[in-house]
């Protein structure tokens, strides 16, 4: 009786001990059980949609079920903080957007994690940022708008999805690039920006493409510029900021996967390979397209370069705008 108790206690100790101290004798090749992805946003947004769309194929190429757990809060900070502190065994990962590692720490003093707290698995899709006006607006091109805004400094308002969102940074970067002064009217998300534009409450606005695509395709709103690196097939007539000679003056919403920083390299490699394979699947590409997003796969190294570049741009601008203090 006592013996079996002792054995049970010993087993229990083994089970809770960190793997670095006592190597688990029953270690199996990764992945051996379902993988949990923390989505740091509520159900229904583009980040959630993107990972749900690729979930079945990602699970297939990993050979284990992929479980999505929505942990919204703090604009994504609650979920990301959880992943940063999770056990680095490859079973708790983040399905997030890049801005949770760049804009969020730069603008929110209470966010304490850093890029170096995560290991990059890869980027897989973008939700392009767009600058748009209502159909029939006096400006047909970005240049015409810039002209108008230059002549009327401070009196032209713009709508964004809120302070500290990609759309806000896109408009601030635009002002910086062209030397404009616009007045900011923040709304709570890309959907309300769309409404404000359609209702004529703000003359110009920035939003995420997925939220406005239906009214852009119907011709009710017109895109003056996108943040994508090349023209998007769904709105082929809309020029990119790169074409305008301003490659660093716009941000896209990048859908990315991360693991906690100390996750062993073979595990991260296995995950990256699975993501790459998933994003080559024509069915996945079509499904991502239909959701208003665009497939843009980047391997871990390329992703990290882009993240650090975006971080530099964002941090500099946040400091200039006196955000996050």
């Amino acid at each position: 009786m006592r013996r079996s108790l002792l054995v049970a206690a010993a087993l229990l100790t083994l089970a809770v001990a960190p793997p670095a101290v006592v190597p688990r004798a029953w270690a199996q090749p990764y992945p051996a059980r379902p993988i949990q992805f923390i989505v740091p946003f509520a159900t229904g947004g583009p980040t959630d949609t993107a990972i749900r769309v690729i979930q079945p194929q990602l699970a297939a190429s990993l050979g284990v079920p992929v479980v999505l757990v929505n942990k919204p809060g703090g604009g994504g900070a609650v979920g990301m903080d959880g992943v940063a502190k999770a056990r680095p065994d490859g079973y708790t990962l983040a399905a997030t957007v890049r801005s949770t590692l760049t804009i969020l720490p730069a603008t929110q003093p209470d966010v304490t994690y850093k890029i170096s707290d995560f290991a990059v698995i890869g980027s897989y899709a973008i939700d392009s940022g767009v600058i748009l006006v209502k159909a029939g607006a006096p400006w047909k091109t970005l240049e015409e708008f810039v002209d108008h805004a230059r002549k009327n400094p401070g009196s032209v308002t713009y709508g964004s999805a809120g302070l500290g969102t990609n759309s806000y940074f896109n408009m601030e970067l635009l002002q910086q690039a062209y030397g404009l002064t616009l007045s900011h009217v923040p709304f709570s998300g890309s959907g309300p920006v769309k409404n404000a534009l359609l209702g004529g409450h703000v003359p110009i606005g920035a939003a995420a493409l997925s939220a406005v695509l239906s009214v852009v395709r119907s011709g009710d709103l017109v895109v003056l510029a996108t943040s994508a690196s090349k023209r998007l097939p769904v709105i082929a007539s809309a020029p990119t900021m790169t074409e305008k000679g301003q490659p660093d003056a716009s941000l896209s919403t990048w859908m990315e996967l991360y693991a906690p920083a100390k996750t062993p390299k073979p595990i991260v490699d296995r995950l990256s390979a699975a993501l790459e394979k998933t994003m080559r699947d024509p069915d996945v590409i079509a499904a991502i397209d239909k959701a208003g997003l665009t497939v843009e796969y980047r391997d871990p190294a390329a992703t990290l370069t882009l993240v650090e570049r975006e971080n530099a741009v964002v941090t500099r601008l946040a400091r200039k705008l006196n955000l996050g203090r």
Partner: protein
Amino acid sequence: MDLLHGLAYGLSVSLQPPNLTACFVGVFVGTLIGVLPGIGPVATMSLLLPITFAMSPTASIIMMAGIYYGAMYGGSTTSILVNIPGEAASVVTCIDGYQMARQGRAGPALGISALGSFIAGTFSVLGIMLLAPPLTSVALRFGPPEIFGLLLLGFTMVTYLTAGSKLKAVAMALLGMLLGTVGLDPIAASPRFTYGSVTLGDGLGLVPIIMGLFGISEVLLNIGQGVKQEVFDTRIKGLMPSREDWRRSAGPIARGSVLGFLLGILPGIGAIIPTFVSYALEKRIARQPERFGKGAIEGVAGPEAANNAATGGSMIPLLTLGFAPNVVMAVLLGAFLIHGVQPGPLLIKEHPEIFWGVITSMYVGNLMLLVLNLPLIGLWVQLLRVPYGILFPLILLFCVIGVYSESANVWDIVVMLAFGVIGLLMKRFGFEAAPLVLAFVLGRMAEESIRQSLLMSNGRFSILMTRPIATVLIAAALIVVALPVIVSPVRRLLRTVPPDDTA
């Protein structure tokens, strides 16, 4: 002709066996989670979203929508029976619904909720079909100044939400507004009252507050008083509304339907505010406003119609603009996108089967809900016989599960429990929770819309006076506030003068 064609086509879609099944599952699950306190439509729809992968887009949307309006039917049940709202849009139903139950009239209260919901649901389906395009353009004219005007009008309703002291109601409303300021400021995103907590940055959640103030506090109150299950003793008088009940309810149902539908279309309003407005309106125009809070059936019929009509109304911006006017619609929008369908102006052309199928399914679903709910009334009333010793732990359990499932955040449970204690104290000292909830909902939105308005106008308040809709709404709010102040002294003056004919 186009409409009839669309209608016939829609019915042919929604009556296909898989879609019919999806509709039934949706409304059934919706009723169930509506009845369970704490567990609301947002959490349920999010949890069930993965299941819809295997279904056609049409069936998925039909099921998701069914959960939402089904929850509106179920939500009133616990409000009426145990004074705990089944979901957020049934908060006001507690006020008179529970009093009716105490008087042994739980059956008619449940009956009028179901029938009123059905009438309102039918009305809003007709509204969507006939008026979706014109109403969309009206809704778009509601920019920040108009929304602010509307919310200001909403604030004037606060004192109608109490049968007791008006001063206490105003005090609670101020507390509600104050609680609404916790979190990141909606414009400058700077933290307020967050004490370095990332969780508090999102502000306090509506669901934890409601479940705490109404659910937990009710349980605590009953424990404190020792178990005396008063509703047991009262004989249950009839299960169906009487002719007199109908006479009283017809107006409130009609007004609640129109009000709920129109408010539901507007961004951010959701299904909660219309219920408060409907209640306040009925009390305002009632011949005997003192009956409210003491089991007036009008106070159940109006708000229950309003929340159901609002669910229909909020489908309009989603279907015609691809805009989610509230959190529930955001989940529904996600369901559309995951299935590769973009709701918006082109939906009716690109996916007529979804557009018409979903709309007609809402009518079918409302019919199912009526058939489902009327026989259930007898069963629900029996629930009152469940000993509190069993019922209350279950309620606590559902509240905890519900609040956690909404956000996956343990702190929300702590918030709920804290508000449970606050709610207990409020009940003990005669403060009512409804004004607090209304002001909490309105406060944050009002702050956001007034500040947006001023940013739009470069700081000039004249923007509120130069836009007709905003001006009318603000004027209406001022009149509602000023009227009693002017009218009652005048009346008193008239009363003191002896009438000539009797002299």
